[in-house]
């Protein structure tokens, strides 16, 4: 016991992140390859084949226009999927008890899973970005904003995945949110179109979609075009991140779905 380090929280955190990274690296055929294939198909079909007939959007070719949204979609999907499946599996197999009986504080558990999930989102996003360069030009309007948005988005959706996993009781429960909520929000979040094309009513509805702000802000960082004020978009992202983190931490403290 005397061997316990004074910076035990950092050791516990890095152990947890290492475990999470090891998990998705071990399953790389399931975790890293499919998103790359999917996004490449999007580039080929929507960007290249159909996009050529659409023409320009926001002052860029359609392919260039959809690249930021598709990269962000990969980040969001993978960050969410990693945390929801990893944490729920650990809950289901009960090996989350390893953590619960240990002295790791709840916030370290939460940050560990979120960072683990975010790294997967960021790796997939990076590979998607590399793949995009085969189909479109390289743009970087504002590196700081692009990186901030991608980090905050992966954080927000990792937290979303964590909360989903806490409430889930069976494997069906971890597919319901991605299928019926996340996917529609992504597709209606301006990945494939500018909201300026929408009638006022639907444009107003789009403003209620948090993913719209993420895509719009990221597109601003990459291309320099946006439909809403960038500060406003970043603020919305930050509010979501803080609110979801607080709620997830509250659930952990309550032991929701973890302690009987």
């Amino acid at each position: 016991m005397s061997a316990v380090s004074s910076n035990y929280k950092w050791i516990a955190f890095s152990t947890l992140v290492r475990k999470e990274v090891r998990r998705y690296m071990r399953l790389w055929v399931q975790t890293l390859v499919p998103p790359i294939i999917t996004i490449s198909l999007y580039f080929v079909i929507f960007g290249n084949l159909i996009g050529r007939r659409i023409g320009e959007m926001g002052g860029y070719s359609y392919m260039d226009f959809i690249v930021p949204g598709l990269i962000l979609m990969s980040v969001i999907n993978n960050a969410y999927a990693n945390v929801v499946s990893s944490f729920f599996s650990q809950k289901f197999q009960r090996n989350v008890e390893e953590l619960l009986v240990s002295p790791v504080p709840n916030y370290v558990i939460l940050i560990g899973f979120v960072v683990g999930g975010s790294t997967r989102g960021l790796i997939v996003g990076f590979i998607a970005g590399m793949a995009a360069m085969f189909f479109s030009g390289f743009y970087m309007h504002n590196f700081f904003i692009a990186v901030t948005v991608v980090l905050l988005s992966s954080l927000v959706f990792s937290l979303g995945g964590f909360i989903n996993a806490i409430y889930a009781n069976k494997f069906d429960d971890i597919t319901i949110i991605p299928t019926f909520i996340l996917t529609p929000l992504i597709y209606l979040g301006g990945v494939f179109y500018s909201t300026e094309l929408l009638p006022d009513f639907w444009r107003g509805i789009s403003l209620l979609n948090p993913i719209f702000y993420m895509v719009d802000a990221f597109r601003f960082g990459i291309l320099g075009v946006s439909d809403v004020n960038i500060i406003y978009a970043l603020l919305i992202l930050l509010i979501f991140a803080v609110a979801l983190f607080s709620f997830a931490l509250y659930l952990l403290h309550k032991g929701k779905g973890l302690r009987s």
Partner: protein
Amino acid sequence: MTIAISIKDLHKTYDNGHVALKGINLEVTEGDFFALLGANGAGKSTTIGIIATLVRKSAGTVEVFGKNVDANSYETKLDLGIVPQEVNFSLFEKVYDICVTQGGYYGLPRKIAEERSEKYLKKLGLWDKKDQQGRNLSGGMKRRLLIARALIHEPRLLILDEPTAGVDIELRRSTWKFLQDINKSGTTIILTTHYLEEAENLCRNIAIIDQGEIVENTSMRALLKKLDTETFILDSRDDLAQAPVLNGYTVEQIDAHSMEVTLDKDQDINEVFALLDQQGIKIKSMRNKTNRLEQLFVSLLQQSGERNIYLDQEPD
């Protein structure tokens, strides 16, 4: 005398209304090898779950080495090692990684976590399996891995919930030897077990829990003294035509070579041998008919609840 664990007036009512614990009081001193026995659903696992913070108590206090588990979660968890009843490590992780990761959760620098993993995997005969995934281990190996994992941070108090359930006899005995060794080296051990022979062989003190209440809490020796009668099976060297008549003793013939002799607690087995010798009957071997603790356990629980006890059921 340091108290390793102190449980006071511990209550637990689950959300579905089931009352699992009805005010348990228990103290285990440092260095003890303590048995917590009870039938299925008696409250053993709930008690351990509360100590491990996996179950939220309804009322009462739990202190580990004088520190309240609620107020001093960090310190008390460092002192505690838990071996759960069911396998709860990741089945897809390698054996070595499972142990090293657990060390990390307890704040051990990686080098020390690796050294400890090697030490305990070797002691428990799992070192040659270190690169295998947990799911590929046999049932007995999985149980030993649970023990190795719980010891990585070298806790002062080790709690084992049915550690040898489903393990073959040879493995069970080697696990007993290992537990006796770490107890001798100073680790306090609390054991719940399905095998009463295990409790009798290993533990110095014992508590029996029934329907959420402690019905007995004493030393193993004092408890076994409570047996009113004890039945032995004696194997004779030569054929027995009939059961010998021994004044003051109940004797029943089992077959041509063996008989059952029942003694009251104030009678002496040496007198039985003397009486048999006078009749020219030589005894080759002798054994208890039933495990003494089992006999007591059943009688205690029947007294306390007058209910059926099925010792062969799966543990709770």
